[in-house]
């Protein structure tokens, strides 16, 4: 990445982080029974996404002091929301086939938090064939495998067969690039995120997939930029930053910067941004999380790093 988009990426990421931090209270979990988070699934998912964004800023090593403080406060807020991990523990205890507790927990591990009871329980469940056989879509299986790797279960007794998991995905088939659709676009981005642990391990992307993405990522980015799908466009820009040889075009970063609001919110698409702060948070928290991740991963790679060594 040339210096110009690196600077733009940094500005986008830090503004988006400020907005997520300022609006974090809108992501509070309601008082539903703790093991019954399915009733509050969207809020819970959003909380995990904010935690992911904060954890990557803390991991990246490229944020300034002020951003590190915001990211730490945001992650701490999320950790308190899950009752210092106890809520994730109770959910896994009650629903042993659910993988979302481990997927969410991994973000906190990345940021230095641990809940020993959760880890003892998860260390047991990940060794069960049952856990590996949960009927997820293929890219979600990679999410689970990456969480296990971040927490420290892989490699080990719960080792995942990454090659087989990868081949099962749409991307793993290196399919006709002209036959992709919007939802499959998200599946492609997530395969890359999990294989590389959000850009930390670019070389874990199999060479043929890296070559395939180098060919077609510019086309897909162009398509969803033209159709105003900013959320997917920005996810595809993260994929570019996760490649062994990062791909970025200045015009894409300028477009993303141009559509970001002054306060840091990134609209999910080209529809009007309307509503009270809580509604805005519901509608645009995801693309703004994506913007934090995009800015952080792109800048980390541009500065020659692949993140601090981690699990």
């Amino acid at each position, binding site marked *: 990445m040339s210096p110009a988009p690196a600077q733009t990426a940094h500005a986008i990421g830090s503004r988006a982080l400020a907005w997520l931090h300022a609006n974090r209270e809108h992501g509070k979990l309601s008082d539903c029974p703790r093991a019954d988070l399915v009733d509050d699934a969207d809020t819970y998912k959003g909380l995990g996404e904010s935690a992911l964004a904060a954890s990557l800023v803390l991991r990246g090593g490229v944020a300034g002091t002020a951003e590190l403080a915001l990211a730490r406060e945001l992650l701490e807020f999320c950790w308190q929301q899950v009752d210092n991990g106890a809520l994730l523990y109770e959910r896994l205890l009650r629903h042993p086939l659910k993988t979302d507790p481990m997927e969410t927990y991994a973000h906190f591990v990345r940021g230095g938090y641990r809940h020993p009871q959760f880890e003892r329980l998860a260390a047991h469940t990940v060794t069960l064939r049952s856990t590996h056989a949960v009927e997820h879509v293929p890219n979600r299986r990679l999410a689970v495998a990456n969480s296990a790797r971040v927490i420290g279960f892989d490699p080990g007794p719960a080792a995942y067969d990454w090659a087989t998991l990868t081949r099962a995905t749409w991307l793993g088939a290196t399919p*006709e*690039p*002209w*036959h*992709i659709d919007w939802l499959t676009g998200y599946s492609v981005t997530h395969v890359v995120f999990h294989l590389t642990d959000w850009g930390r391990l670019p070389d874990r992307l199999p060479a043929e997939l890296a070559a395939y993405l180098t*060919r*077609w990522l*510019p*086309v*897909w980015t*162009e*398509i969803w930029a*033209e159709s105003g799908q900013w959320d997917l466009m920005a996810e595809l820009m993260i994929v570019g930053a996760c490649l062994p040889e990062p791909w970025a*075009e*200045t*015009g894409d970063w300028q477009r993303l910067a141009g559509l970001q609001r002054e306060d840091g919110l990134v609209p999910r698409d080209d529809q009007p941004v309307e509503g009270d702060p809580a509604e805005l948070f519901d509608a645009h928290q995801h693309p703004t999380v994506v913007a934090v991740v995009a800015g952080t991963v792109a800048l980390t790679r541009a500065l020659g790093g692949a993140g601090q060594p981690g699990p």
Partner: protein
Amino acid sequence: MISERARTAHSESADQLARRALDALRGTGGAAVAAVHVEAAAAESGGDPGVALGAVRILGADVLAPYVLTGQAPPAGDTAAVGLALSALPPDETPPPAPPAGTEEAWTMAWIDWGLATVLARLDPANSPVRAAPLPQDPPRCDDATPRDLPPTTAAHDGDRLDEPGAPAEEGWVSWSVRMGKLASLALPGLDGPVHDAARAGALGLARGATRATLRRDHPTAARITRWLAWLHADGVQLPLDPAPLTENIGLLGGGDRPALDTAVARRLLGLEDV
């Protein structure tokens, strides 16, 4: 200046002519393409043989594609009609400059004329206009690594590049592939030149352009660019994607007579259909 109405008339006439070429290629129409088209325009009330001859120039070498692809000799009336279309408004002796120095339209037309005149000279030298078709300027080259929306850029405009003077302009794949699509009538067996060299050097750009056009549901553009991929395949160039399923996909999506003709030509270039 050409009026909107005249433009529509030319475009409709070109569509009809494409249908005639397609029928001839499939063996379902008459043996003649251009001649029948011009005669029909003269016979119809309100028809304009001038417009019909203009349509021949719009379609370019595609008017003769059935003969190129089947190996059948064109009827004398057909080559005479093409010769008339070329001589009625002869191409400029000095070809217009390539983009970015010149306008897109004039330069594109010059290449389409070149294709038509070159195929005619091969099929029926006796009916060719006396003067050989001038070779237009080289097209810009696709640079896979440059920003995809970079317009044609010559070395003089780009301080970082150390190209030799006179080297063709370089361009991002988005607009480059669309422009190559406009020259799809050159993607015929036996035609070769600077545009074909640019296609050989830009296989990835063409594959990206065809993918983009397909995803945008711009079927005419997808058909045109995919035809270049088929031509490259027939030429033995390694491609970043398999052109056969893409050609079939575009054929199934439809889009009009001209895309149907492009797809039919591509199918023959790929050996998907017996000639």
